[in-house]
């Protein structure tokens, strides 16, 4: 990109967090949170975030996080109250529960937008705060309108079938032409829905990264729709290959006993041991498939997004994550968690962060000295905390 400027330096990101050290912070956070019935969790969160950002270095400086626990506590209490109300009502009165879910869905883009603004404003590097300039209206397009459209397109054929069933239309009486048109439209609608995914994903990443600010400087994310389609298409091919090989393996090894198991369950007599082994193998393969899917998008999307991410004419980002390496880290992390009853959590987080952060680098082409923090409006933590408890934080896929 800057072949004409031979003097620019590529600076790697470094991560200096250590598993043992984070374990001490984590376990103290946990016990104080338990002893204070959850109130300390706001302080715990600030310490955790400061630990990870403070150990992320670029050049001679590290990042930092400035939110005060009280800001977060307030939001957290409201969010927890809402979550409790929702869980109880949705279990007891499903109709009211679904209405609440609908309401949450309508509020969600606002929540995400608030949390993006809050978190970026609370993060600093070299004494300068980040910021987020994304428009609220675009948040609604990216987090509600586009996903909703994709889901509707996906459901359209099924709605058609349901309507035909309710109207009591006999398929034999429908003219062949009408039938063909129906199936044609249905297929088109399904394909269009699936084909939207890479585009929606691209819009999402572009919204979150491309509206970031560093001081007065703007981060630009010139993401390529074509690259996202490439990532998804390659994923699809690999997916088909892996699932075919995996199910052939399970069927070949345990096919007969699986049939036996189905009969056993029907007669209420329970499950024979070989079928259990087959089920366990299928479970492990599903887990691995999930791990690989996550690693694939994490690596491919992050690498592409960073390659297109720059700060004015000052800095060009880069990332070189490997899918295989990420699969290994995620899979071994899962094993570590399983065999330590979750106590290995701090080590797994440090390992993952180290690999992801140290795979990133930036070419410094200008002077960072000129950046200055911008005046910002006070933001409460409510939006951010709702994002946390309900996991609506933008799932960027990396």
């Amino acid at each position, binding site marked *: 990109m800057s072949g004409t400027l031979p003097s620019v330096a590529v600076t790697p990101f470094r991560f*200096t967090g*250590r598993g043992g*050290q*984070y374990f*001490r*912070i984590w*376990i*103290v956070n*946990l*016990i*104080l949170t*338990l002893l204070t019935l*959850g109130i300390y969790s706001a302080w715990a969160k600030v*310490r955790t975030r*400061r*630990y990870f*950002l*403070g*150990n992320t270095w670029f050049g*001679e*400086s590290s990042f*930092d996080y400035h939110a005060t626990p009280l800001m977060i506590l307030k939001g957290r209490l409201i969010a927890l109250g809402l*979550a*409790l109300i929702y*869980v*109880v009502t949705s*279990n*007891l*009165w499903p109709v009211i529960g679904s209405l609440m879910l609908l309401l949450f869905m309508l509020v969600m883009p606002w929540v995400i937008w608030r949390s993006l603004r809050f978190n970026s404003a609370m993060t600093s590097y*070299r*004494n*300068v705060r980040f910021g987020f300039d994304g428009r609220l209206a675009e948040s609604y397009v990216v987090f509600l309108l586009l996903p909703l459209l994709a889901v509707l397109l996906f459901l359209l054929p099924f709605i058609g079938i349901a309507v035909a069933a309710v109207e009591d239309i006999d398929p034999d009486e429908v003219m062949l032409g009408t039938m063909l048109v129906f199936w044609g439209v249905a297929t088109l609608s399904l394909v269009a829905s699936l084909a939207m995914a890479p585009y929606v994903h691209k819009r999402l990443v572009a919204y979150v990264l491309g509206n970031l600010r560093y001081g007065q400087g703007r981060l630009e994310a010139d993401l390529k729709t074509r690259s996202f389609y490439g990532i998804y298409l390659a994923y699809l091919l690999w997916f088909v290959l892996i699932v075919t090989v995996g199910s052939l393996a399970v069927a070949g090894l345990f096919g007969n006993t699986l049939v036996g198991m189905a*009969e056993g369950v*029907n*007669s*209420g*007599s*329970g*499950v*024979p*041991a070989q079928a*259990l082994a087959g089920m366990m193998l299928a*479970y492990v393969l599903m*887990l691995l498939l*999930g*791990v690989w*899917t*996550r690693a694939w998008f994490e690596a491919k999307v992050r690498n592409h997004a960073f390659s297109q991410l720059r700060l004015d004419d000052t800095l060009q980002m880069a990332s070189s994550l490997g899918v295989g390496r990420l699969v290994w880290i*995620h899979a071994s992390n*899962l094993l570590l968690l*399983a065999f330590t009853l*979750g106590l290995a959590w701090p080590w797994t987080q440090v390992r993952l962060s180290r690999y992801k952060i140290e795979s990133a680098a930036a070419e410094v082409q200008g002077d*960072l*000295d000129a*950046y*200055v*923090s911008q005046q910002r409006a006070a933001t409460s933590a409510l939006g951010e905390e709702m994002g946390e*408890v309900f*996991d609506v934080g933008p*799932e960027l896929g990396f």
Partner: protein
Amino acid sequence: MSVPNSASDGPAGRALSGAWYPPGSAARRPAILHSNGLYYRLEVEGGTRREGDFRQVQVSDRVGDIPRRLVLPDGSLFETSDNAAVDTLLQRGSHRDGRGGIVHRLESRRSWIVLALLLTLAVAFGAVWWGVPWASRALAQALPASVNQSLSQGVLELLDQWVFEPSALPDARRDAIRQRFRERLVPADTGGLRYRLHFRQAGGMANALALPSGDIVLTDALVALADDPAEVDAVLLHEIGHVVQRHGLQSVIRGSFISIGLLLVVGDVNVINSLAAALPAFLLEGHHSRQAESEADDYALTHMLKLGEDPEAYARILEKLEAVAGDAAGEKDQARLRSYLSTHPLTEERVAHARALARGAQH
């Protein structure tokens, strides 16, 4: 605690190297801060000098070994990785920001870490093993009966549509069972619930089930298995036991607790985490389900004794049910393994329990 040094020491106590930034600016300059905890003097490379009262400086809390931020009264920032020196200065000057160091001191002591670890494990185990079941039980009994109604809304209709067929039992047989059900078995204090008995067929399966609302379903195959009315009573009392003890509602409340807890602990619910968490949650629910079955057994046996019926009838019908189910799968040696995965306790144990009671009743 050390006594603050006197002012005459001068700002020569410690020299911390780091970097200085003008207010709000990224212009980084190497700098050295001299301080004794009371006064400070900052020397920035290139000549700028600042000095003043160290206690007017805002110092960020210590977290691990991440750099400390020292915000000077003019809003400019001194950043240093010399955490040990900053801690010493805070202590020497009895600085108000030194109080934030308590958490870091907890994190640094091995004995505190071990204590925190043991306490966390104990609390987590206690909450999952005793706390959640206890709270679910208390809540299930405290909630109004209407909650049980709405929980069962539409379930029987759904089962009728997909699983059940109408019963083919002769009317006389049904009426006889219904009469015993109404007159002998339904508890005097219904707790606001309406107990109703339904007869159905389920593809020849011998089974009975209870909805939280008090609707109890009996299959024709089960009625056919029973040789005398006491055996049917035994099964119905077991199902009534589930309703009286509100097992359905308890399970729903437990599920809510576990999902909220998981949400708070993991903080991020994705496909992988859900899959990984599914197995332990499944095994745990199996345990509670077996416990609920034992409680329903106890309820049935106690009430049979009260009604003057022989608990032996309960043992007989259980054995017949096991025999019907066992024909298809057989293989008793796998029973042990199955018991961990099953929703019901081992039949042998349940039968033995009933027989022990039956013998006790005779003496």
